[in-house]
């Protein structure tokens, strides 16, 4: 290829350089320089291969820190477990990388501004088993969705009924007006009524059949997941962007393989065994960029490192203990020690990161990153704390979850809180967090949501069990208020409440580092959070 480019460069110079050796040499030197700089740019990963034309074919191998225990998105609120569903299934509406909510399986949506949404489904869409996608499937899927904690339970609280009219029309009847229905439907993946009708969420679907660009061909828990391009896929139109617009399904196959260790994931990319590896320490950015064996891709600062407290039982159920925990922490130092390069993280108390400008807020952040040991002492005294161990369950499977843990533990120890850090794998953490007797706080991460109503941490049903009447009123307002300004005001109030009651705590926001093989081309790195259909392979 280098020879071809060099020849073409020489050829392009031929009319003016005929007979002039010096100019030929200069042209060759220029060509080589361009080639070298081109290679360098690719290694940096900044352009992510924008120069190459998209091509179909090949097997895209993605290394995950763990294969999720289920591929059914209704069975867990953990977004890391939705990776399969995001490529195999589709919701009625989905979110772009700029957090716009757009129709996917819906053709038109009609809201009367009061109590009725009428959704007309896209025609010609069918499931991967050949069955046509109809309104009955939507009703069956949404009926199951209403059983899920989080967004499903909010939707349930807002609706009085979901009915089908004919094969392509669904009517959603509301208890009170709400502009948030399309947003709440962005996590409701559609499956055939024959599979999900009357199926409880405690009975997960492990052979997903959906309408997405890839079909699930193999799922072995703890081993691997294989997807194959589905040729019967009918894509929505519009520019490709995250879960919205045209989905191109370039790779013939997508294989998810588990590699728990970050260093192993990185080496697997560098040796060409896998094409994409995520959740890497940000410190390796420079070495990956300069290695020439892989490209380093950074997402926008989308990932919030957090802990969620047990508000049901145990020592952290006392609000004063949680406030003391917050007052003991110097987030600048914690984020600095955990993540290193200041360009890759921000110390901000906005629950929805700045990347989503609509909902980013500074409300209540006067309590954030204000370490005050005297205040901690007083709060601990008021709470009657006498040094009993505080169990913090965490995992190394996700770097954004684990990086702040040890620096925070050291600061808490200095402030008089006896924190016992227990490191487990992510699946164990997800299991343990459902039993309040097994933790006082657990590590987690907040991705950037399109709308705060999607934030599961605000739900009482989320592990940790936050009960608060003011929270209920503000959430209801957020779900039902049609005026955007009033909704923003409600969210500001709610964020203020979060930083006062401290049901969970955010350390800061980070970018997420991915290493991709030289042949892998990614147009929008933010899609690497789970969407792989727009990624293609060269050669």
């Amino acid at each position: 290829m280098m020879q071809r480019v060099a020849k073409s460069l020489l050829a392009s110079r031929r009319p003016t350089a005929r007979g002039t050796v010096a100019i030929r040499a200069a042209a060759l030197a220029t060509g080589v320089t361009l080639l070298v700089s081109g290679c360098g740019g690719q290694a940096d990963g900044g352009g992510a291969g924008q120069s190459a034309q998209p091509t179909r074919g090949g097997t895209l191998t993605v290394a995950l820190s763990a294969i999720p225990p289920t591929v059914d998105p209704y069975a867990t609120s953990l977004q890391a477990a939705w990776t399969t569903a995001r490529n195999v299934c589709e919701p009625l509406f989905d979110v772009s990388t700029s957090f716009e909510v757009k129709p996917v399986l819906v053709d038109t949506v009609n809201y009367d501004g009061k109590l009725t949404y009428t959704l007309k489904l896209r025609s010609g869409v069918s499931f991967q088993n050949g069955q046509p996608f109809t309104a009955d499937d939507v009703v069956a899927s949404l009926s199951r969705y209403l059983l899920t904690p989080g967004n499903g339970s909010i939707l349930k609280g807002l609706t009085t009924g979901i009915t089908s009219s004919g094969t392509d029309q669904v009517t959603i009847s509301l208890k009170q007006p709400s502009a948030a229905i399309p947003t709440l439907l962005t996590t409701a993946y559609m499956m055939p009524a024959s599979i999900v009708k009357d199926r409880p969420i405690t009975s997960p679907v492990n052979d997903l059949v959906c309408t997405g660009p890839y079909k699930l061909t193999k799922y072995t828990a703890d081993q691997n997941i294989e997807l194959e391009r589905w040729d019967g896929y009918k894509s929505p139109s519009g520019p490709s962007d995250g879960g919205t617009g045209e989905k191109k399904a370039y790779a013939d196959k997508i294989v998810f393989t588990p590699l728990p260790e970050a260093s192993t994931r990185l080496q697997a990319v560098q040796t060409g065994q896998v094409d994409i590896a995520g959740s890497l320490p940000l410190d390796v950015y420079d070495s990956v960029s300069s290695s020439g064996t892989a490209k380093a891709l950074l997402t926008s600062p989308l990932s919030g490192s957090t802990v969620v407290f047990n508000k049901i039982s145990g020592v952290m159920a006392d609000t004063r203990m949680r406030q003391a925990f917050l007052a003991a922490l110097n987030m600048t130092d914690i984020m600095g020690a955990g993540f290193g390069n200041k360009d890759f993280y921000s110390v901000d108390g906005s629950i929805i990161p700045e990347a989503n400008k609509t909902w980013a807020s500074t409300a209540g952040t006067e309590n954030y990153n204000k370490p005050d040991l005297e205040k901690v002492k007083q709060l601990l005294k008021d709470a009657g704390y006498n040094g009993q161990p505080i169990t913090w369950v965490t995992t190394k499977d996700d770097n954004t979850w684990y990086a702040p843990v040890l620096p925070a533990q050291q600061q808490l120890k200095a402030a008089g809180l006896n924190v016992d850090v227990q490191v487990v794998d992510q699946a164990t953490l997800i299991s343990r967090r459902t039993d309040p007797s097994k933790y006082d706080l657990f590590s987690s991460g907040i991705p950037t949501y399109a709308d705060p109503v999607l934030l599961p941490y605000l739900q009482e049903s989320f592990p940790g069990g936050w009960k608060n009447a003011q929270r209920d009123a503000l959430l209801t307002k957020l779900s039902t208020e049609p005026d955007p300004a009033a909704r923003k005001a409600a969210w500001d109030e709610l964020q203020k409440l979060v930083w006062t009651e401290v049901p969970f705590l955010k350390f800061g926001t980070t970018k997420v580092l991915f290493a991709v093989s030289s042949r892998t081309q990614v147009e929008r790195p933010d899609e690497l959070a789970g969407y792989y259909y727009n990624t293609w392979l060269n050669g």
Partner: protein
Amino acid sequence: MSTVSTPAAPAPHAPAELPRPAGLLRKLIRRPATVGAIAFFVLMVLAAAAAPLIVGDPNSFVATERLRPPSPAHWFGTDNLGRDGLARVVYGARASLLVGAITCLLTTVIGTAVGIAAGMFRTVDLIVMRIVDGVMSFPVIVLALALMAILGPGLVTVVISMVVVFFPGVARVVRSTALVVSELPMIDAAKSAGAGRWRIFFRYVFPHCTTPVLVQAAIVFTAAVLVESALSFIGAGLPPDVPSWGAALAESRSYLSTAWWMWCFPGLALIGTVLSVNIVIDASRDILDPREADK
């Protein structure tokens, strides 16, 4: 009246002549490699014992001092959280040597008692050795991991796991020696002279087992240090706030080419400690072996 003189009971067969501790030490220090090994090990022990006096808190961090190479301020550099490498290595020595020493002591006591009991009493032998066979049929790390999973993480759990994993080996070696000794004429003679079981145990059988017990104890020590490091390396050993060489090596995996000091110093400490003890064991065994002593 004739007096029947009864010959005095024959003196029990004297244990094999072993060099006395002073003699052993004298012979050891004639070997340069052994002197180096002892010096290194003593240095590690002293550093571990005096850790709070010579380094600061191993968990304290400075966010702006991450991944710094060795310098006068940080002799062993700093790690990925901005913690002092020297303090981590010294406190890591504390954890490793403590685990090794406690495990060695408990394993030796339990293994020796079980081994001698099995060698002396056939019923005990039948029961205990089947249990020992069962425990020894598991790979060491797998058994330790299973126990860690059941008992939960922590120093005490690590020690319990190690003792369960290692005592069968000691018991088996001691048993074989005890079996040989219990068949010696001196034991019959001692019984004839009216010696009780405990006297026979402590006066005649145990001294014969000293050499294999000492060698086994040292082997258990090094194995315990290695297995603790291995468990911490895979995240199943000591809690993350307790410095450990194995955990430090695990953390360094993402920094192999960019921060060599993160793996180099804990690695050298681990290799040096295990190697030094092994050199001393080897030399001691050579000196204590009667066949070698004759040469």
